[in-house]
């Protein structure tokens, strides 16, 4: 429908703004709670070592052309040697660490805590929004949308003739959920526990990172063709000196 619905300004005062304020406050509360509950996680020596190995292998790949071919080759063998190369992870072992991580009590507790601190406020706020702020049009989105979005954005509104641009407060809740991340990093500094979206992505792409990384590094290292850049430098040095002398 082409007509414009006039929305009560009371909606703005009593729905949109309080909802945003409440979400900001809950975020700040969660940040402080997470700081209190932070258990100092003792870094596992194996994981630290693997991280360092990866950094070193990456350096080797990046700057391979700066060292003589013999040294590069000996290092490559050191890393990707079949028997005791640093990057070589036999297939059988790769699966175990993941199971180990889940059964490791410390790490499991940590993960649970992090998940809980994320899920519970979200669920509560969502339920609160649904209970109090449903059944009316809350806002109008400035750009037109297709009919597909109706079920997502217009949940409490049972009129099918209302333009899809008019959304319910649930969509305002979701907008805030994802949008306040920037605000939190301004207020609370870089490392804050409200990075939900990042955590959600991490949870979905869960895998035992180091072993996959090791395999990836090994493949990358195998691919590298060593082309010694130093002879070029001699010519460049000549050019530099020539310019200097003039």
């Amino acid at each position, binding site marked *: 429908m082409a007509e414009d619905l006039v929305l009560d300004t009371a909606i703005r005062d009593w729905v949109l703004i309080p909802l945003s304020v409440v979400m900001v406050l809950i975020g700040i509360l969660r940040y402080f709670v997470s700081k209190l509950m932070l258990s100092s996680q*003792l*870094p596992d*020596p194996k994981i*630290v*070592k693997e991280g*360092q*190995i990866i*950094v*070193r292998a990456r*350096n*080797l790949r*990046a*700057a*391979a052309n*700066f*060292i*003589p071919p013999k*040294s590069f080759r000996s290092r490559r063998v050191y890393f990707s040697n079949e028997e005791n190369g640093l990057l070589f992870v036999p297939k059988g072992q790769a699966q175990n660490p993941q199971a180990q991580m889940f059964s490791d009590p410390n790490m499991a507790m940590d993960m649970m805590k992090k998940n809980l601190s994320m899920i519970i406020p979200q669920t509560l706020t969502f339920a609160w929004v649904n209970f109090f702020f449903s059944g009316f049009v809350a806002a109008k989105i400035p750009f037109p949308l297709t009919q597909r979005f109706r079920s997502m954005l217009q949940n409490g509104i049972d009129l099918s003739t209302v333009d899809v641009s008019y959304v319910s407060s649930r969509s305002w809740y979701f907008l805030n959920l994802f949008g306040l991340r920037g605000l939190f990093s301004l207020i609370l500094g870089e490392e804050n526990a409200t990075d939900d979206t990042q955590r959600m992505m991490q949870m979905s792409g869960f895998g035992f990172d180091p072993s996959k990384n090791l395999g990836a590094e090994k493949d990358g290292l195998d691919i590298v063709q060593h082309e010694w850049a*130093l*002879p070029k*430098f*001699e*010519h*460049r*040095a*000549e050019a*530099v*000196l*020539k*310019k*200097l*002398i003039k």
Partner: protein
Amino acid sequence: MVSKTEETQLNSLENQVDNGGGGAWEYLCLVRKLKARRSEKVLKYGLSILNDPKKRSALGPEEWTLYEQVAIAAMDCQCLDVAKDCIKALQKKFPESKRVGRLNGMLLEAKGSWGEAEKAYSSLLEDNPLDQVIHKRRVAMAKAQGNISGAIESLNKYLEIFMADHEAWRELAEIYVSLQMYKQAAFCYEELILSQPTVPLYHLAYADVLYTLGGLENLHTAKKYYASTIDLTGGKNTRALFGICLCTSAIAQVSKGRNKEDKESPELHSLAATALEKDYKQRASDKLGLLTSALRSLKT
């Protein structure tokens, strides 16, 4: 490593504080950030801030970081009483802290009681086996006691775990050079070049080590690395220029009789010599005669 702009900033701040204009706190923060070793100045200005209760309370929570910084500076200047007072204050505030335990270990080291310091560090390492700083302090202790091979062993063990720590590689390289174990030193310098390929210092050191090892192939490689140093420093590094001349003459000597012309860079040698002469004319013209006679003797 400190960049040039940061170093000039540090020096200008230092001058400012020396001549009585304020800014002591900014100076101390900058020293802490750049990990520069200016212990006397830090001690002087740090103590002046700490002994003045008004300024001390103005610092707020940073006061304890300052205590730590002044304690370390005091130990460096051998003012052990000052250090002990600072550590006592820190211990009162943070009774179970690892950092304070580390400072205690350092104090024992500074006093020279190696056995007790070793015991303190071992107990700290039991609680936290992955503390890099404590590992490095043990290496420093071994080195200070003159036990260089022990230092090498602990440093190697440290590097097995923390192999991306380029400071440690650098320390190991310098120890090897001091012991004339040039092959191992060359390996360490290669690691450094890998991690930071654009720092000319490492290229230069690597070239020096290769030149010292000798042998035709090493000399060629050394020459290339001197050239890369020249390239990275824009021709201003005198040592690299000398290196090129020496390498060329050494190669000519070793391959005497073999008519192996250097096809890659025929002019590099003469260019380097000319650049050296120009440099000396500008900066030390009285030594120019020495230079020209030395270069002439190399050219043969």
